[in-house]
């Protein structure tokens, strides 16, 4: 299953990013194999309307869950419509740390 983490850099050791729509990178981890893919967010400097567009990137990559710090209303609407579960991580650690917490089921699922 593919799980997406918002990140400040391109590897799982990078610090996690709290924002979704303007996150510098999306790190997509394949939970079965442990492999990852880093996508540089083209909308990171966008003026407006970035939430739905960022959500479309996740949909295009067949992501099933998103772990992020804050997801705006428009993005939330698109993610929910696409059936992508949202989890909150705001501990300020690395993507790896967020991933460990997700695996251990200690993250809160947001509506």
């Amino acid at each position, binding site marked *: 299953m593919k799980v997406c983490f918002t990140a400040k850099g391109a590897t799982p050791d990078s610090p996690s990013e709290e924002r979704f729509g303007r996150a510098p990178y999306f790190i997509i981890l394949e939970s079965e194999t442990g492999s990852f893919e880093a996508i540089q967010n083209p909308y990171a400097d966008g003026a*407006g*309307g*970035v939430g*739905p*567009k960022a959500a479309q990137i996740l949909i295009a990559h067949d992501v099933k869950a998103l772990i992020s710090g804050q997801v705006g209303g428009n993005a939330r*609407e*698109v993610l929910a*419509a696409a059936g992508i579960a949202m989890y909150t991580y705001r501990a300020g650690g690395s993507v790896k740390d967020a991933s460990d917490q997700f695996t251990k089921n200690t993250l809160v699922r947001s509506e």
Partner: protein
Amino acid sequence: MRLAVASGKGGTGKSMVAANLAFTLSQAEQVTLIDCDVEEPDLHLFFPAPSTTTEVTVPVPVVDETACQHCGLCEEFCQYGAMTVLSSRVLFFPELCHSCGGCTLVCPNGAIHEDPKRIGTTTISTPLPNLKLISGMLDTGNPLAVPIIRTAKKLAASDPLVICDTAPGTSCPVVETLDGCDACILVTESTPFGMHDLQLAVDVAARLGVPAGIVINRSDGKDQATLEFCTDHDIEMMMTIPFDREIAAIQSRGDLLCRARPEWQKAFAALFVKCSTLAGMDR
């Protein structure tokens, strides 16, 4: 002639100058005063009078899901991200839509039609025999001021002398108001913030090809920096209004300087002559 009163920094006295100028000129000829600060119009406070109000609407897309093939062309076309096409439905975000009509045109299946959506109003009144006041008002919570400004200006399209009071700042509503004007009065105050924002406003007026002149309001006589700026940029300093408690008191009770102290009409009449020269339309 179409004259705009703008500023850069907010609170410098645009409405005060626009209202007094319109009042003065309307003693002798037909004047239309348009309140283009549609997010916070205030000219009607200085000119209370019975009025008529009309709704302003903009077209917004409505998707017929039974005809939609979810091809994604509307999403691709939209510059504002207002359309998100999923595999089985389309999500529309009204606050992002700029009513360009593009999605409706590019849909290959005729699945989009447009419905009018109210965004605000325009109000017209005749507070004085020769003064027509048009006020634009954006509904609270609505993001697009520009269509209302456009509508308000259109209502004065064939009027001979039009004065537009603009919103503060230099973004879209100000650009829309300034566009097509023959000259612009920039009202400023001699403070660091005033100077900073005046430079931005001068730049916008120049890019739009609208000749600009400056009025210094609330002057304490220490306007050196502003005057140097004018010289450096070859802009005329057209009038100075002093920082005066009595002027503030008149303004604060909703009265006009030119109404309470008619001798000030001479100064505003002279300001208008300078504006006419600036516009290349000497009177």
